[in-house]
């Protein structure tokens, strides 16, 4: 170490808590001493004498140290206190964080365990299975049988048979078993017919007023037919984008078109419609099972039980196939010239569907009935066409188109965009639909709404896998770094980033999970299904969080670069003017702004969705935006780091302006997205934002490596930054696991509360139902979760 460096080190020793200030002063004093030395050398001083003289001119080192400290006292005192506090608190926090991370990893492993294909296909993610298992463990064998059936069974029929046998006089359990038998579809085991008929007989005897047994009986014949082009089944009868009416090729039975057999089926359906009701008793079966359990100890336990009971109940099975058969048969009759008989068959099916709609207790049942109505209507139109009655055909198609439009504009589109979270709106829609479907009594309840959120848990599983992978990568990386670091024994935790880096990291640990979760909440498969709303007020919270995340990521990257560059004494000859930076900014944002405005205009003009090509361009623009953004940030940071030109200070200011501008633009964007109910934005933007951000960061660093042509700078900057990013990502994802679990629990609770409200309305005798009723009456539960939407 040279004498001047040693001298500077000594006099800046007291400023060690502020590395930036110390570097700045050191640099300034160094330039001062260099000039002084040069001048002495010019006056014929020897090198050593010149240095001695220059140092002597600076005065007493101790006095100078104190003076410098005094001059920056206010700033340094705060930093010193932070330093002390950080030393005392960061290590325990860091240890706690690592422990939490390990626990999170273990929890993830636990969640991954026991995941089977069956569970997945039934819409149960491993998280659900994990929570459910915890609840079920507390129950007795008998209680578990009531709630879950035989949990080791391979099929649904095997699952519910023991419950059916245990309560032979309970009609609801018999019905439950019959429905499970129907779900075998075409893969019926040997002896299925006997089992089915026996169960039907028992059910009919116990519940003679319900026509459902006649309907289910004919489902025995269903697998015996094969159809051409069943995919469309008459349900997709016009293109969404073009709005042009396209009638699909109607159903045609491939072979064995036994019209006599279909006629018998129709007779059976006619018999079913003579009964006072046709109902699958979806909610009643759940309620019955719950009523047989002893009183739960806590409200939480009760909620879980309700949720479990609903999760294991089955939806309508086989009705669509039944409808296919009748419709195909009717069309075949019409082809053979028996138009009246064809229309009669369709009428019978329609009456049956109407009665089932009236008796349906769940959203999916009801939606199935509506789709049956559409299918029957379309086939009716085709029968009219065969009969040459074009007037009636057109009337029928126009009516169907109107209904379809109603479904899409009031139901499908809002529910996908998240705007239909308000259950009152859903109720309004149902009532409106009811008015347009003559003969159909639609009994909307919030339970149907809650049921909708039971599906598509795949994203949760995916997030968990990602989490585990990240955790593994980071662990390996950390261990590797630790092994390579000589002073690992001294600071094994902080060796990558130092105290300040860790402090920022901790801050990120607080902000990033919140930010990440806010992003996750906007994804359709996870956040919305966990009950989070995506509305303007929420975005007011989300947006600063996301900006905070970006800033912190930027700070982390910049700090890594700065530290490394300072330690290398780097000089980056980047002479670009501020106009270059402005150019980067405009290049990045202008196309994006133009594109999204065009998308918005498209969506606001009423189109249901934008084309794939536009979406691809949108994604591309988004990626480019963030690549450039990061490049911009890093380039400015490097320039600032060297402090070579005031232009860079201006550029840095511009960056802030840019950030504010982008904030405003994003606000506008979210406002428009919200206004247009745009599924496209809300589904893709947040995920793209994160991936593009990471990609951009990577590209910026690669670019930096080229600029420097110093491999060690490139590699170390890269390693430091990426290791930090990975570490943060792992911790964030680790933290998110806990949040996901927590929110899943609250989702269970919400759903169960809605279901409970149904049970209360039906006056099901169940002890906690009365507690909930009291809570409702005292206004402790949200009003829109009651069944007041009818």
């Amino acid at each position, binding site marked *: 170490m040279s004498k001047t460096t040693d001298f500077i080190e000594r006099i800046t020793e007291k400023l060690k808590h502020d590395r930036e200030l110390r570097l*700045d*002063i050191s*640099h*300034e*004093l160094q*330039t*001062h001493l260099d*000039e*002084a030395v040069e001048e002495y050398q010019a006056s014929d001083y020897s090198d050593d004498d010149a240095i001695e003289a220059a140092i002597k*001119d*600076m*005065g*007493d080192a101790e*006095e*100078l140290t104190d*003076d*410098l400290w*005094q*001059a*920056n006292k*206010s*700033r340094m005192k705060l930093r010193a206190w932070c330093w002390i506090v950080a030393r005392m608190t960061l290590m325990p926090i860091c240890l706690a964080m690592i422990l939490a991370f390990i626990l999170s990893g273990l929890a993830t492993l636990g969640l991954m365990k026991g995941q089977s294909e069956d569970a997945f296909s039934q819409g149960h993610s491993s998280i659900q299975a994990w929570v459910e298992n915890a609840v079920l463990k507390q129950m007795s064998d008998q209680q578990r049988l009531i709630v879950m059936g035989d949990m080791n069974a391979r099929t649904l029929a095997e699952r519910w048979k023991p419950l059916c046998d245990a309560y032979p006089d309970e009609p609801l359990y018999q019905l439950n078993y019959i429905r499970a038998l129907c779900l075998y579809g075409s893969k019926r085991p040997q002896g299925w017919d006997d089992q089915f008929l026996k169960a039907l007989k028992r059910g009919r005897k116990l519940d003679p007023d319900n026509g459902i047994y006649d309907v289910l009986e004919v489902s025995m014949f269903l697998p015996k037919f094969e159809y051409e082009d069943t995919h469309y089944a008459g349900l997709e009868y016009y293109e969404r984008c073009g709005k042009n009416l396209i009638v699909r090729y109607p159903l045609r039975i491939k072979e064995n078109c036994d019209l006599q057999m279909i006629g018998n089926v129709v007779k059976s359906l006619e018999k079913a419609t003579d009964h006072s009701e046709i109902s699958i008793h979806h909610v009643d079966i759940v309620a019955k099972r719950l009523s047989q359990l002893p009183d739960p100890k806590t409200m939480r336990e009760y909620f879980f039980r309700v949720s479990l009971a609903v999760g294991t109940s089955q939806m309508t099975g086989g009705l669509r196939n039944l409808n296919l058969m009748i419709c195909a048969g009717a069309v075949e009759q019409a082809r053979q010239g028996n138009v009246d008989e064809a229309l009669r068959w369709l009428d019978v099916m329609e009456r049956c569907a109407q009665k089932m709609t009236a008796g349906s207790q769940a959203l999916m049942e009801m939606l199935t009935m509506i789709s049956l109505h559409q299918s029957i209507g379309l086939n009716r139109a085709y029968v009219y066409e065969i009969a040459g009655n074009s007037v009636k055909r057109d009337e029928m198609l126009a009516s169907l188109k109107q209904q379809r439009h109603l479904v899409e504009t009031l139901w499908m589109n809002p529910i996908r965009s998240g705007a239909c979270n308000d259950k009152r709106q859903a109720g309004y829609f149902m009532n409106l639909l009811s008015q347009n479907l003559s003969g159909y009594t639609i009994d909307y309840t919030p339970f149907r709404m809650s049921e909708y959120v039971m599906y598509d848990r795949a994203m949760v599983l995916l997030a968990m896998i990602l989490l585990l992978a990240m955790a593994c990568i980071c662990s390996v990386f950390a261990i590797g770094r630790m092994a390579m670091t000589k002073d690992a024994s001294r600071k094994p935790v902080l060796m990558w980033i130092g105290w300040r880096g860790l402090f920022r990291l901790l801050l990120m640990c607080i902000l990033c999970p919140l930010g990440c979760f806010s992003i996750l909440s906007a994804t359709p498969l996870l956040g919305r299904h966990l009950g989070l709303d995506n509305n303007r007020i929420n975005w007011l919270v989300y947006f600063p969080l996301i900006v905070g995340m970006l800033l912190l990521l930027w700070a982390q990257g910049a700090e890594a670069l700065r530290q490394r560059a300072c330690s290398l004494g780097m000089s980056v000859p980047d002479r670009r003017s501020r106009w270059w930076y402005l150019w980067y900014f405009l290049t990045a944002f202008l196309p994006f702004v133009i594109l999204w405005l065009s998308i918005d205009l498209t969506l606001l003009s009423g189109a249901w969705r934008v084309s794939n090509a536009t979406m691809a361009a949108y994604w591309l623009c988004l990626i480019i935006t963030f690549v450039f953004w990061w490049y911009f940030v890093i380039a400015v940071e490097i320039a600032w780091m*060297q*402090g*070579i*030109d*005031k232009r860079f*200070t201006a550029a840095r200011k511009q960056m802030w302006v840019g950030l504010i501008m982008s904030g405003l633009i994003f606000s506008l964007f979210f406002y428009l997205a919200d206004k247009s109910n745009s599924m496209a934005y809300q589904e893709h933007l947040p995920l793209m934002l994160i991936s593009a951000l990471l990609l951009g960061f990577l590209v910026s660093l690669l670019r930096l490596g080229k600029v420097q042509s110093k491999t060690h700078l490139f590699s170390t900057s890269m390693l430091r930054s990426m290791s930090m990013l990975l570490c943060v990502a792992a911790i964030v994802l680790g933290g998110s696991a806990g949040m996901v679990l927590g929110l899943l629990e609250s989702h269970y609770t919400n759903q169960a509360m809605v279901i409970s409200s149904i049970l209360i309305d039906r006056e099901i005798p169940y002890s906690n139902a009365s507690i909930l009723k009291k809570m409702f009456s005292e206004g402790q539960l949200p009003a829109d979760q009651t069944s007041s939407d009818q």
Partner: protein
Amino acid sequence: MALSQELARGTVMPIVLALLNEQPMYGYELVKTVNDRTNGVLQFKEGTLYPLLHKMQSQRLIKAQWETAEDTGKQRKYYHITSKGEKLLTESKTQWQQLSEAVNVLLALG
């Protein structure tokens, strides 16, 4: 003849402001300019200059910026006077004027 340390102390800040009011300067340049212009009567102890500059910076009287010298290409930290500094300089000048006149009167009596 160098001025006594005590007498010089109170004048350093206005002098720095006055020099920076002419043009932005870096630390070494400030020291040299003062020494040259006063023929060594006023001598800045180089070490004391930097704490003073930092103090003035924290009081927002001056601001600093790293710049590249056009002639040599060297990076130096240039200090610029702020509007607050200019205001203080005007006040200091007036005060100095008054003080100087008063002292002259008193010294003339002796």
